[in-house]
């Protein structure tokens, strides 16, 4: 049974401008974006003029003229607001190397601040601006590498953690640390510590950090102060997940980490991805065997077809030499729009229900005839 709000997963795309090297090399712009309709057109630079450009439509399209503030206000802020109100929200960042993912998500101080610092600021504006509510904000940071989950805030980030499910609280990572933070600088510090552990850990374990996904989670608990005084506090708990998806081109060429957000036409060169290929053959059917390679999907299953507001921000480059990778990003983003839970039910055919209705009507008619007969006799 699907619990999905069909509008829950929004996909927005952002195309950066041609950089100085691309301009110096005389590269052509092959991406056209209609920011009003959300349509993106991609022209194949190697094709002749008779080949129509490929078009995709998304919930929003941001071109080189769009500002960091616009993207935050339109695509990310509604998610952060809903988390403040006690709902869950997830923001995915997707983009191949050099497409501006870091700029979109992190950016630079000031006007060029990206989604993450703006989200932090907005959370604490809300916290500091509401005197009637008692707030607690906690942060956790984990990475998934080769289907192993690690706590980036742990004293020993090499330890693997288990992903479990609880019938009340949902999916959780057993043993994951969450630190209480009281200000934007504290939140930024947590992020910085985790990033550092990610790089250090990658070096120590000889792993490629660009192949790992990371999830920075901010849990926001709010309680009405007046209600608290009367012991009738209603606590609302929202969770914001900021997900940095592994660089796709590196992932596909060196081996999949096995998440279910598979690209439509990529070829995986690593035999460790055979499981994904086979699993996809039974995708959507009720008869599949539980997946082993789904840590990311399991951790975010509320975001994918659940009752969480989700936005995926897909970044891409404009130049002709990026055609293949840009096309890949657009296909991936397009596919993300269609992620939903498939219903699971042992369903009787509709025809059987019709027959049963007919029987029911017949039964009731007979019963009424008998009862009317008895009543008349009486």
């Amino acid at each position, binding site marked *: 049974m699907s*619990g999905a709000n*069909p509008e829950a997963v929004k996909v927005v795309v952002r195309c950066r401008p041609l950089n100085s090297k691309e301009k110096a090399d005389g590269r052509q712009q092959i991406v056209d974006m209609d920011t009003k309709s959300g349509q993106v057109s991609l022209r194949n630079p190697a094709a002749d003029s008779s080949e129509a450009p490929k078009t995709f439509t998304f919930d929003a399209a941001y071109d080189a003229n769009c500002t960091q503030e616009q993207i935050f206000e339109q695509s990310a802020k509604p998610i952060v607001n809903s988390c403040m109100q006690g709902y869950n929200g997830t923001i995915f960042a997707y983009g191949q190397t050099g497409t501006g993912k870091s700029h979109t998500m992190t950016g630079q101080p000031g006007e060029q601040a990206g989604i993450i610092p703006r989200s932090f600021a907005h959370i604490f504006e809300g916290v500091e601006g509401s005197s009637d509510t008692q707030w607690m904000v906690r942060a956790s940071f984990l990475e998934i590498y080769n289907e192993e989950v690690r706590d980036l805030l742990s004293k020993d980030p090499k330890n693997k953690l288990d992903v479990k*499910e609880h019938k009340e609280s949902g999916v959780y990572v057993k043993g994951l640390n969450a630190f209480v933070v009281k200000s934007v600088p504290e939140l930024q510090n947590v992020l910085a510590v985790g990033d550092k552990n990610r790089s250090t850990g990658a070096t120590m374990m000889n792993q490629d950090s660009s192949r790992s996904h990371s999830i920075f989670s901010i849990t926001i608990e709010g309680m009405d102060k007046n209600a608290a005084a009367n012991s009738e506090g209603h606590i609302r708990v929202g969770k914001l997940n900021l997900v940095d998806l592994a660089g796709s081109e590196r992932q596909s060429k060196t081996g999949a980490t096995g998440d279910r957000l598979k690209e*439509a036409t990529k070829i995986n060169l690593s035999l460790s991805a*055979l499981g994904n*290929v086979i699993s996809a053959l039974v995708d959507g059917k009720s008869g599949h065997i539980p997946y082993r390679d789904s840590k990311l999907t399991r951790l975010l299953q509320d975001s994918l077809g659940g009752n969480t507001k989700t936005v995926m921000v897909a970044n891409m480059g404009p130049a002709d030499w990026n055609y293949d990778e840009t096309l890949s990003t657009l296909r991936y983003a397009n596919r993300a729009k269609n992620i939903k839970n498939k219903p699971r*039910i042992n369903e009787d055919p509709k025809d059987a229900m019709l027959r049963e209705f007919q029987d029911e009507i017949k039964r009731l008619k007979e019963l009424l005839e008998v009862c009317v007969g008895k009543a008349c006799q009486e």
Partner: protein
Amino acid sequence: MEAPGHESVIDQVKEVLSRPVDESQPYKHWYDASDLLQTELDKLRGPGALRDGTSDPEGVAWLMAQQGLCLLETDLRHQGEACILAALPRLELRAEGAGLPGFSPSQSTHHEQQPQSAPTEHLEVSGVGHKAIAVLQRCYNALGALWSERGELESALMWLNKAERLYHGQRKRVLQQKGENKDSLPSPPGSGAEGAGQADPAYAGDVLEAGYTLTVFSLAQVHAHAGSKEQSALYCAATLQRQLASGEVQLSEWVQNCLQLSAYYVNASAFAIGQYLLDAVQRIAQVEAEKKRQALDASDGQATGGEAWTRVLDEDVAANVHLAWGKLYLYRLVASLAYMQQSGSQKPSLPYPSPEHFPDLLRFPSLSHLLPSPEELPWGVSALATTFEAARDLFNAAIPRFNAALEYYKLDGWVTEYVTTQLEVSNLYRVLAAFEQDPKRCAAMHKLRASRLAHLVGALNPQHYLGLSRSIDLETANAWRDHVDALTDKLDSKAPNKSSKAIAEGARAATHSYTRFLNSFRKEDAGQMPDRIDADNEHFFLMAAFNLGRVLHRSALRVDQHTSESDLDIMVQAYKHLHWIADYVRRHKIEKMKQEASMAEQLASLIAEKIDLSKKVASMPKK
């Protein structure tokens, strides 16, 4: 990667590619490798020389192919492709000159061909021509991947089919040579006989074998992308075979993949193949367990038989083996019911109806001595139960498997797997009940089905498990509904009140669960129902709503002077509900539910009569 006469540049390229990757410039090492190869190419061509005016056209082709393969790893894929395409004619000529039977570079048309069986014995190759073949194979594989990523799947298949033909042609040639002069060739790797002959340092067998495994794996993926699941499944099986034969598998991972492939065939009602794959899993795990037993001292107390095979697998994979067997039996039962319910010419045919239809690619030749012969497997309709006894046998085979899986997949820790497995068990009861002729036993089965789910009703937090919660409520409701229908069939005329009471209780239970399910669509707690339910769920919503309408009034069957106010209320509720759902269908013009809506209104009008009659009878003077 050895290039004839260009070993030093190849060594330099290898050194560059082995350096740690700079994350801020992830393509740099590929660019550097490409630049080295370009320098070497420039030397061959000389200043001002035409591309074809080189004294070493093979060397040029070789280097261009290598350069192209490097550039395909970067964002300069177009250039990479161009390099490879420029190199191909010369490489193909070299391969042809190496006497490759059945290979012609002009065969560039793409067409689906019956996949040949994927050989598992290693290929022995040597000589310059064969190195050209190895590079050619890499180029074909790379172009196949490139075109797949562009979404041009026919082109991708064309290149991969070329790679496949190249390998098979080479294999045929080498085997013919082996037949002529067996002793001069090195032993296959992993055969344990490497010391028997002088190994050729330029040995390329491993490279070609690995390349072919990649070809087969890529074909599996491209066919999947193209929606050709059957072809994809065959190539997935071929890949599994080659992994097994290479001896380089992680057992649990291989088993898990084989289980998933089995699930594909079970879903497609190809039960014989599904079972073959499960037999293979079981045997491999048992062989491994036996090896471990022999390696250890048997007196250490470890069990040596029975379930010893579970200990060589990761715990979750061992549970999945049980689950896969349980599902095999369950879906045989489901298919049996569907078959029984269809009549005459409408009876569905099952895929792979006999052993003759067993594809070569799906067989595991290295396991043939361990597995049952194909004739012993349940092909086609022989997999189906046609009697209650046969159905019960399948049921009895499935239940312990599901219970074993649930030993691992406990509710605390594995909510999703636990619930979905319980829903499968409920399905098992549902289908077996359909074979049961005795209504009393049938009713008991449905009641048991509902009772297995009872502890889950309301147990999950809908904020995290809305889909599963709804599934539980709907399945429970349907189980009670079926229980009520079975009781109605066996209505005991000698004890009508007892029967009516049991029916009313069952109907109330069904009503409770249907109502829970429908209420889960309200906007907030006890809020308004949305004007229209989302497309994903609307069908289930409507089915549940109609079923509720059908069972609701059954909670109050008595139409006599003993009809209570609460019974009347129930009948009024039923009346209103039936009109509401009929109105929903009409309002949204849901054509496929028009008949149901019309019947709902008929039922509503009968219920109205029942209400009137109840009131009249209630108002009559009591004797």
